[in-house]
């Protein structure tokens, strides 16, 4: 069988394993992108969120065969961008990171949201994050940080 070809954080890769392997496992074990966390393996918590062609998707629910020809972004790639810098600064300013386990997924959820809607309302932010569970913060600080990033990073999205 042909290798599964996709772009991971801007780099073309060819996966030689099975098309039925789980994207989450492959990202962590084969490509070492450990920012992608496993919180439930059932598509509920969002800790393993990645961007597939710009759409926020739980990588635990994706078989490798489905990513052939796609472009995948994880925090390892996204952290090199100006958009990340704006989000990082806003999260820092209100101490929105506690245990940190949900945070890479949250950051990508924020990116997915702001890419489609650069000036979201609070309700729209809450909607945009609703697939990503956080047990530490009560969400206030995360919502507020994304609000700040949208304002301070005006023009980036």
């Amino acid at each position, binding site marked *: 069988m042909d290798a599964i070809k996709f772009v991971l954080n801007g780099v073309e890769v060819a996966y030689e394993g099975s098309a039925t392997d789980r994207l989450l496992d492959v990202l962590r074990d084969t490509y*070492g*992108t*450990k*920012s*992608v*966390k*496993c*919180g*439930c*393996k*059932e598509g*509920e*918590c969002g*800790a393993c969120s990645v961007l597939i062609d710009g759409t926020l998707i739980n990588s635990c629910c994706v078989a490798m065969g489905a990513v052939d020809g796609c472009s995948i972004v*994880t*925090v*390892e790639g996204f*952290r090199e961008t100006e958009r990340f810098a704006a989000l*990082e600064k806003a*999260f*820092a*300013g*209100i*101490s*929105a*990171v*506690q*245990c*940190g*386990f*949900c*945070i*890479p997924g949250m*950051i990508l959820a924020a990116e997915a949201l702001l890419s489609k809607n650069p000036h979201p309302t*609070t309700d729209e*932010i*809450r*909607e945009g*994050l*609703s*697939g*990503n*569970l*956080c*047990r*530490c*913060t*009560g*969400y*206030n*600080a*995360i*919502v507020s940080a994304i609000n700040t990033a949208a304002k301070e990073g005006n023009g980036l999205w």
Partner: protein
Amino acid sequence: MEKISQSVVKKDHLPKITGRSCYVGDYVGDILVGKMLRSKYARAKVLSVKVPELPEGYYYVDRNDVPGDNNVNIVMDDTPVYAREIVEYIGEPIAMVCGPDEAVVKEILSKIEVEYEELEPLLDLRLATEAHFDYEYGKGDLEKAFAEADKVYVEEFETGYQDQAYIECQGMMAEPEADGRMFVHGSMQCAYYVHGAVARVLGCGPSGVHVLQDVTGGGFGGKEAFPSILGSQVAVAAKKAGKAVRCIFDRDEDLEFSSKRHPSLNTYKIAVKDGKITAMDIDVKFNGGAYTTLSAVVLQRGIIAASGVYNVPNLHVRGRALKTNSTPSGAYRGFGAPQTFFSVEMFMNHIAQDLGIDSIDFKLANVVKQGDGTSTSGIYHFPVPLVDMLNEVDAKTDLFKKHKEYSKPQTGRYRKGIGMSWYFHGAGFTGSGERDHIKAVAKLHKYPDGSVEVLACNGEIGQGLRTTFPKIVAHELNIPLEKVYYDHPDTARVPDSGPTVASRSLMVVGELLRRAAIKLRDVWVDGEDQIVTENFKEPDFMIPFYIDKFQGDAYPTYAWAVNAIEVEVDTYTGVTKIVNATGNFDVGTPIDWNIVMGQMEGGFLQGIGYTSTEKIYYDNKGRMRNTTFSDYLIPTSKDVVDLNCMLHVEKYPNGPYGAKGAGELPLVGAPGAFVEAVEMALGAGHKINHMPFNAEEVIKELSKEV
């Protein structure tokens, strides 16, 4: 704002947000995967286990492989590392299979045949009689007070399980080292608890083990004692295999088989005379599950708080943690107090309704003040700011007016309610625990380059200790924060400053560090390598606490809170929408404003989840039915409005810069406020005395004839 309260960028912010932090699941290398063989029955005798022939490099590990004692040291020693002949709950680990390939490990597990002789399990708390712990205390003349009362009320309250639902599941790893020591690390709150437990299980003495807390994806009490069990299990496996073994739970496994908050059944009898409470007779039952784990201390805190924030001159409290054939219950933020505060707050509302007065007025008429006696005949030594805090909440929410307005009969599909609860959280370990058991030690190590390392064992679990500890030290030494650092603790190189529990770390260990910093400042010599040590000292104002009698100051001071929750109930669907959730919290001086607010908001939402959607269902065999986040529902960002948290500051002179215990407080009172609000919306005649109260419960309540 005081300088120490001004927020800084958290020390662990950057590694976490960039995804570079290494959690236990992120280690790579030659690591065997461990998975549990678990009991299928709630109570059974294991007659035989047939293990298929194992491929090379795979191991089957059970109690026969334990080199030392097959009992995990928690408070007592009754929790087995691997099951004895009789299994006591569904999911009890009988053995672990480990090997290089997870798929092969799972296949081996599926082929193992266990022959059981089923025994009758005890699953219902109401039928339980065997007490893990049975405590009793009181004061005054109960009989006389009940005889002289205008009215006597009796009501039973019931609360459910709650899972900590940290987003990183339980995970521990053990690696045999070349020098013969066992290196155990993973997701945990209390490195020295794990250290003590593993040393005993391996039979190697304390020097044969060292334990590192890895970056930990949330704890909330769930990683207080449980990692001692899982750490012991992986250590035994690593010892047998001679290789690193890691066991990380799947989510369903974690939800079902790790310890949760104790369900409770609390019966209150209250005497009222002239609008005042004159006596309470309280019977508290906690479902401890199959083994004792932390039930003793959870129960102690629960029964000390049982009479709430009210002056009760005549009091009798009995508390039991009862054995059932269920997953052992354990620590969860609030530690027994949310159950009893819910009960007493709801009962105060119900009595006020019967007396025909507003429950806030009734609560005000009975609330404690500074100098009053506590339930255990100690004293509230410091100001009790509850009335001021209540007024502050009213100013924000219009509580008093709404409370009267929404109590009037309502019609229509959507109905409103607002509930208020107030409560304390005793700061630090219960009783003389700090003095007699913990005996915390903390150190500062100053290096020749002028940097200072905090040496303590309290784990950063998101609550900010890697930032707040250095903040205190840098502040006292008057050096830049960048010069002070606090790494994740490894018991090989840090002293035992006590567990990361009981909202104690910042208040108790933070104060030790502040004093150590003063010491260091006094002896500081540029360019030298210097270490200073500070030991715990009991505050001198304390009335000694005797745990056998429950007499004395159970806590040196208290954190206080007032919560108001406003709801709108859809009487067609049962769905309750939270319109406003306001929490006023007194945790003393915030050592970092953002960090403390993050604790308040996060804890408050966990409390809201606990009382509204987080219901756990069991079948009649004792198996948990909802073991995923699709059906065990913790709040999402969309389920709530912005939480409205405020800080009221009453400084505690023996905490660093006036700080008190903070972490647990915000969770404790949400149930009382939420359920009162729902009850009010449903209208007079609906008397709710159980929670969680989800949409299904609303519909059940509405279907009753009132």
